[in-house]
């Protein structure tokens, strides 16, 4: 009990130390940077398969950049830490995000965004598995028609992200937008598609209930 009273909770201690002037503040920043670097290396390590051409030194550079950027974001947003998780968990998410975005962008560097035609053929394949017959063919044909009727931005985002597997951060960079704004486009596109299919009387089961 005495120890608990004498020791500030680590979460509060982190924020206070990072706000400290002088050597204590600098030490806290250095300690935090080391944790962020560890998290960034963790993320880049698990995504290494996406970057087979990246050498070890380049991966380390990417991790350092991610840790640096995460540190800046955290110091800017320190007031937003609400203490609803451990401080380190809160901080790690910034490093993981920075690292993941950098890996996705690096993996797509120099690659073109796939064309809509690639999505249509894949959509047709998905709609023609054995044993489903005319009902599914109608559903997928209607789906393509309704995707083509979407507004340009909604269609562009839906086809790229949901059908062609383009990471949303990569698409956001190419379109000069943000992940959040594009996800809103995707969300609206999905809502419109669901409504359009329902108005055609098409029942869409994405779960396993129709498999029984």
């Amino acid at each position: 009990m005495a120890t608990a009273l004498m020791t500030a909770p680590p979460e509060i201690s982190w924020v206070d130390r990072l706000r400290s002037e002088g050597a204590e503040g600098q030490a806290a920043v250095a300690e935090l940077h080391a944790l962020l670097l560890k998290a960034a290396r963790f993320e880049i390590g698990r995504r290494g398969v996406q970057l087979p051409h990246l050498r070890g030194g380049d991966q380390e550079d990417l991790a350092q950049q991610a840790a640096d950027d995460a540190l800046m974001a955290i110091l800017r947003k320190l007031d937003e830490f609400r203490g609803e998780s451990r401080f380190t968990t809160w901080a790690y998410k910034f490093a993981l995000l920075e690292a993941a975005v950098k890996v996705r962008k690096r993996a797509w560097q120099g690659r073109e965004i796939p064309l809509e035609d690639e999505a249509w053929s894949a959509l047709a394949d998905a709609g023609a598995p054995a044993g489903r017959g005319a009902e599914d063919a109608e559903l997928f044909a209607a789906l393509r028609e309704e995707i083509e009727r979407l507004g340009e931005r909604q269609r562009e985002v839906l086809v790229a992200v949901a059908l062609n597997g383009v990471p949303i951060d990569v698409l956001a960079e190419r379109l000069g937008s943000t992940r959040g704004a594009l996800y809103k486009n995707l969300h609206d596109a999905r809502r419109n598609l669901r409504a359009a299919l329902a108005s055609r009387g098409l029942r869409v089961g994405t779960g396993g209930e129709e498999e029984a």
Partner: protein
Amino acid sequence: MKAGDNREAVLGRVLGPSEPELTCEQCFEELDRYVELSVAGDPADARVPGMRAHLDGCPACAEDFASLRDLVTQEGD
């Protein structure tokens, strides 16, 4: 899209979750709390409504969740 994708996976990606979901910004804001609840075995989905639906609909946020969960789990080992 990869060859061999099944019907449900494609429909799931195209049509997304049908229930209300968080935005990407809200997801990032709640991610640390949601991960700690999940790792602790607490009812994370009930405590953070809309998170599960968003993770089902947003591949990038789902990857961020998996990474933070695995890092926190590794730290706890």
